[in-house]
């Protein structure tokens, strides 16, 4: 027995152990592998992981300094069956959100059916009237979605929030796997892990499918706000892995509703823009006139059908946390299906009765601003001071539409290497879905974020979180112990992207 596993006293669902010392079957092999290491060796490997990230510039800005994004050496494992259920739930959610966006920027059937008050939409700051009448050629407004999941005390996955504007973090998934295969290649020969490196080609295919029909050889670009953006590393990585140009606003020009890219060989028409620039900054004619990172005329070029902006303009309305509470209804209404994934129990504070009840016992809820991201503005009632709760009470009473209340969920924990040994830490999961108009594909695994502080519940990197390589096993029914799967079925060593020395910062501005 090597490293010491600290017992989990949090009461939360433990991902690895069903009871103290008793690993869940899917983790048995991993546990044995980890136990084979001496603590010093694990520390060395952990340092090696950190070094890989610093060497490759995989850092993020935290409290004003560049730090490597901590990758924990204990991977998170999801079984094939469980993953299949999750992936179907995520795909279902993305299809419902697509239908919802098409509806609110079109006919508005949901209001006619009185399933949702119109004012929920018209009062959302992200409802973009300038996007009204823009019809994507293949119907896709959500080429990429990041659906944040947590596992509750009973082991059920539920959706915490939807990110269908410019979800970021997929580069961590790719980089984490790359680093882990280097530092712990032995673990990968013992497990058949679904690869994650097909993401860029999936995204490229989806963007190609989104192109205007009249574009015979569609030109795709990645539009970045530039090197100072927190996720610039990701923009560079995706552009490079897709083999498309990375551009900034100043590289593009609109003329008569067509978009062109300035190149050394003159101008070249652009047909699909995978943009990592927020709506507000995208087109100074429609939104903030002072933007220097956007492209004037882009919205009308999209309306004219000459270019596709992906993800769609105005998608933010679907990320609004008040609108999130209606997603299960969207699934029933638009798809005629039963939701496969539940929301976290959430209360709508624009309802007078509900608000009165929540305000009466604020300390029992988690209160979130409807348009916050990166963990900003969240108050965890049971941990808040009286002063904080008073201020919150006032803020909610003044603008009830701006907040939602949720049941505090003890996020599941996962054994995590924390220097002295291995201890439970809270985690969440952000899977990434790609919609090509025919099918919603979910990248196996996604980004597991871990709150590194003991007992800490907010996992965002901007709050000092780290991440874990997330494994979806190819087929859990195949017994690994003592049986070597045929070479053709075994996972391959991951060949990383051919790139070096890019800066990596995270969060801030992106989702």
């Amino acid at each position, binding site marked *: 027995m090597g490293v010491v596993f600290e017992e989990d006293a949090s009461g939360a669902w433990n991902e690895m152990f069903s009871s103290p010392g008793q690993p869940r079957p899917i983790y048995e092999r991993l546990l044995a592998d980890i136990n084979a290491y001496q603590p010093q060796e694990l520390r060395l490997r952990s340092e090696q992981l950190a070094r890989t990230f610093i060497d490759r510039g995989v850092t993020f800005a935290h409290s004003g300094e560049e730090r490597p994004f901590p990758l924990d050496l204990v991977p998170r494992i999801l079984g094939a069956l469980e993953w299949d259920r999750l992936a179907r739930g995520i795909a279902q959610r993305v299809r419902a959100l697509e239908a919802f966006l098409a509806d609110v920027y079109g006919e508005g059937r949901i209001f006619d059916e009185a399933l949702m*008050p119109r*004012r929920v939409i*018209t009062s959302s700051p992200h409802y973009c*009237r300038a996007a009204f009448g823009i019809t994507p050629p293949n119907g896709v407004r959500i080429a990429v979605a990041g659906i944040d999941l947590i596992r509750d005390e009973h082991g059920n996955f539920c959706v915490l929030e939807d990110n269908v504007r410019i979800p970021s973090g997929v580069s961590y998934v790719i980089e984490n796997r790359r680093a882990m295969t280097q530092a712990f290649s032995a673990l990968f020969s013992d497990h058949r892990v679904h690869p994650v490196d097909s993401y860029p080609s999936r995204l490229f295919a989806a963007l190609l499918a989104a192109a205007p029909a009249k574009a015979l050889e569609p030109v795709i670009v990645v539009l970045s706000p530039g090197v100072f953006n927190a996720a610039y590393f990701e923009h560079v990585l995706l552009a490079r892995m897709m083999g498309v140009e990375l551009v900034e606003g100043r590289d593009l*020009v609109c003329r008569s509703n067509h978009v062109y890219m300035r190149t050394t060989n003159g101008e070249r028409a652009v047909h699909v823009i995978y943009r990592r620039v927020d709506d507000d900054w995208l087109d100074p004619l429609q939104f903030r006139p002072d933007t220097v990172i956007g492209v004037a*005329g882009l919205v009308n070029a999209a309306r004219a059908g000459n270019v596709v902006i992906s993800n769609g303009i105005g998608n933010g309305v679907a990320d609004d946390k008040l609108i999130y509470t209606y997603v299960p209804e969207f699934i029933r209404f638009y798809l005629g299906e039963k939701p496969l994934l539940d929301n976290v129990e959430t209360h709508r504070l624009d309802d007078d009765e509900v608000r009165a009840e929540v305000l009466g016992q604020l300390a029992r809820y988690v209160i979130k601003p409807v348009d916050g991201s990166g963990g900003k503005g969240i108050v965890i009632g049971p941990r808040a001071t009286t002063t904080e709760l008073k201020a919150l009470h006032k803020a909610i009473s003044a603008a009830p539409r701006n907040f939602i209340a949720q049941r505090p969920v003890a996020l599941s924990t996962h054994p995590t290497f924390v220097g002295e040994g291995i201890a439970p830490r809270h985690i969440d999961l952000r899977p990434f879905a790609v919609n090509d108009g025919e099918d919603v594909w979910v990248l196996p695994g996604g980004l597991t974020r871990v709150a590194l502080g003991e007992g800490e519940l907010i996992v965002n990197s901007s709050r000092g979180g780290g991440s874990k390589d997330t494994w979806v096993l190819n087929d859990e029914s195949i017994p690994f112990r003592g049986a070597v799967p045929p070479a053709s079925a075994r996972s391959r060593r991951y060949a990383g992207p051919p790139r070096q020395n890019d800066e990596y910062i995270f969060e801030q501005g992106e989702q």
Partner: protein
Amino acid sequence: MSERLGLAIRHHTGFTYDGLAKASYNEARMTPRSLGTQQVQSSRITVRPSVPLSSHVDYFGTLVTAFDIQETHPQLEVEATSQVESWAATLETPLDWRALRSERLSDRFSEFLLPTHRTALVGAITDEIATWQKLSDVHECVETASNFIRGEVSYVPGATTVSATAQEAWDRRKGVCQDITHVTIGLLRAMGIPARYVSGYLYPATEPEVGDVVEGQSHAWVEYFSGTWTGIDPTNGVRETQRHIIVGHGRDYDDVAPLKGIYQGPESTQLGVLVEIRRTH
């Protein structure tokens, strides 16, 4: 009230630059569309320098002409001409307050009930509301509010800028039609009456002669929902007449600005707005 006016409208506006402008992107909302009180027989927009134009109908139903000018230019001119037949709506019996405030209607018109930063009003002005709301007839209530504002806020061109809010105009008790419209909208919404901003033209002659060309105005007034959308012109203290030609609707001015744009280059000066209207029949 069934008199039909045939009007030929010419609306000319633009900018001149202290030098040369380029990379200019614009949207003009200067073209009337056929509606319940008007029929548009023809319309066209001319832009100088001459460039390709594209058009679409926006979220609020207004016809938008979009264009961009890449080449350098000392001046931008936009001229909209249209031939419109216009008539006055008959005043329908209004809904009662209970029906108007029903959940269904207040939700349907939520965006014409919520204040915008242009229409929001706070302070003593809102005290008047309680008295007006006692009037059982919604039309009468709106007229009373409109007359009150007309009595309080003087029409003083130049007293406010194009970016003024209702509150600023109210505090100064001065403004132009845009401001008086914003104040009225703010008060109607505060009373729970859905109200929207109307951008358009006013044919000023009360006794119009066929063939006369008169200087018209780019004008703004209010429509409120009382079972149907009903127009009232608080600046002139009248209901919407056949002399009011509608170009577009919005929550406030910002949704229907006649010409909005951005460009690269030196400071600009507005050319001034010229509206000429000729009665054709």
